[in-house]
């Protein structure tokens, strides 16, 4: 037996992750997709039949809420990603270029610290800050600056604020690694050839950090379009996202088949956006697809 025929040691190391991926993503997703094409649960209901009605229900949207929910989900995901990038990039750049080890460790702890608290707790904390009787509105009213509460919560604004707070660390941690590996001398070389700080950043550092921007953006986008707790608690009547609709269909309408169809639709639309985003960034970087 030759060595080439044997699986490499790394293949054995990857096997548990591969198995987990198959067991807890591929298999459940396949079941969910199959269920979305049935009228009921074919395992417990012998009268369940194959149908496309759940997809038709979404497509034709006679209820007038499903398309808006999809658009709302994507809008919240995109805005959260952009704001997280705008906040996270300078912070990641600063951390990556920091000379002091102690300073770097302290900033890293500050970035990671919020992640040690659960999402529900952090969302409730935002509620106490942003609600009508919350810290901000109460303070501003006590100072006589406003007469009635500012609409900081029960809308998309409040939802995005809380989501950005929750997901910025993912952006920062992803970007810091990539920016840290960019050779600082390249930027210095550009400056020595006459480029200003801004031009050196835009033409050297930024293009080289595009893989980090892509990875961080995809991570934050994926997390925010699938968020359930935060939009439910912060959104009030103004926010209805697909994950909220899916939870409704499973938990209170008892229609897992339509919930499955909504899940498949969300995944397909998200994949299309991710592919498009990847191509745009690849073109900007002048190379091939990066993810």
């Amino acid at each position, binding site marked *: 037996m030759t060595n080439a025929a044997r699986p490499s040691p790394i293949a054995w190391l990857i096997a548990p992750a591969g198995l987990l991926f198959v067991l807890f993503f591929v298999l459940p997703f396949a079941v969910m997709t199959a269920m979305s094409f049935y009228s009921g649960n074919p*395992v*417990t209901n012998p009268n369940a039949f194959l149908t496309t009605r759940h997809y038709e229900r979404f497509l034709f949207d006679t*209820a007038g809420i499903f398309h808006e929910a999809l658009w709302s989900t994507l809008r919240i995901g995109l805005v959260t990603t952009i704001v997280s990038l705008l906040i996270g990039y300078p912070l990641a750049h600063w951390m990556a270029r920091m000379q002091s080890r102690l300073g770097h460790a302290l900033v890293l702890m500050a970035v990671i610290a919020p992640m040690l608290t659960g999402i529900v707790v952090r969302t409730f904390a935002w509620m106490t800050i942003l*609600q009508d*009787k919350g810290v901000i509105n109460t303070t501003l009213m006590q100072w006589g600056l406003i007469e009635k509460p500012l609409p900081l919560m029960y809308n998309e604004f409040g939802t995005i604020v809380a989501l950005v707070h929750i997901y910025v660390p993912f952006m920062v941690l992803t970007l810091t690694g990539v920016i840290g590996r960019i050779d600082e001398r390249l930027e210095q070389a550009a400056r020595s050839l006459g480029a200003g700080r801004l031009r050196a950043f835009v033409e050297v550092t930024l293009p080289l950090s595009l893989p980090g921007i892509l990875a961080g953006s995809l991570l934050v986008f994926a997390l925010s379009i699938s968020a359930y707790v935060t939009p439910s608690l912060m959104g009030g009547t103004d926010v*209805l996202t697909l994950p909220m609709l899916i939870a409704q269909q499973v938990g209170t*309408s008892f229609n897992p088949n339509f919930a499955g169809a909504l899940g498949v639709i969300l995944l397909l639309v998200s994949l299309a956006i991710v592919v498009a985003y990847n191509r745009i960034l690849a073109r900007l970087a002048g190379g091939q697809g990066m993810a």
Partner: protein
Amino acid sequence: MISRRKALRAGAGLAALATMGAPSIVHAQTKTLKITTWGGKWGEVMKATVLPAFEKEFKCTVSADQAFPFLPKLQVSPKNDPIYDVLHANSNEQWNAVVEGLVMDKITAKEVPNIADVYPYAVSDKIVGVTIFTSAIGLGYRTDKGLAKPTSWKDLADPKLAGARGGYLIPVNSLGQAHLMMLGKVYGKGLTDLDAAYKALEALKPIKLVDFTGQMEKMLLSAEVSMGVIHDSGVYRYEGANMQPVDFASPSEGVLALEQVLNVTPGSKVKELAFAYIDYMLRPDVQKLLAEAVWYSPANRKVKLDAKYDAKLLTTPEKVATLIQPDWKWYNARREDIDARVTKILKG
């Protein structure tokens, strides 16, 4: 004289009998009743007192699931070997379950003798299974905001309460669904007058909506809302806790029933034990213990509560007569249309 061969045959026969009998003996010793139950204070009392006493008396073990939602789990389990023997849920969910054949249509005093002592509402035609407790859905309000005690459901529409009134996300909360039907009764021809209900709902904007009652309690306690739809238990349970300035009002048009209903799954392998559990939950001593722990009105007429609970809960035929039971079968059949309509009304 018994030959060696006969002796061996007899021995083998006895061994076979013993082997066949053994599983049933083991089974009898380890009977397990699978139930659903609530968490919080209710769950604490159940796990600390009620269930251990039941296990001791009926020589069984009880496996209690507190992880909501229960119905989707029951839906995907085999009907001939369901994940639960007893489903504890609110009335609207029981109606969803019965439509899918997941719970029994009716339980009578023949199976559960204590049913003979319950108020009529507990086994009315609006109920599948048996109601063991009920709460009254009415209006909770802050007593420190200069508001008069509400006397009508219409008081929630007071313009002074714009942005300071609370309700529920109707697609996910049965209190919100019951309130919608009540709007039809108060502003229209009856509980099923949806056009009047939609119009009245529109007039309640701006309104703060939550998806579960615990969150409404929190909004009332933090004064995020000054008045909101809530069940009496959600207000009374804070009695004496830091002198919270919150009270409950029963509108003159009647209060809505939020029933705690038990039902048995048709495929249960321990049906007798399941009926015994429901009977046990209707015993006056068990009812008194749980009613006073969480401020639920007991369904058994023979329960005598301590004075402070008796004064506020629905413990007499006159008080029980103020309960209005929604027709959940009717509501569930229209649910998808209602969900879509109210979502559009309340959005924006």
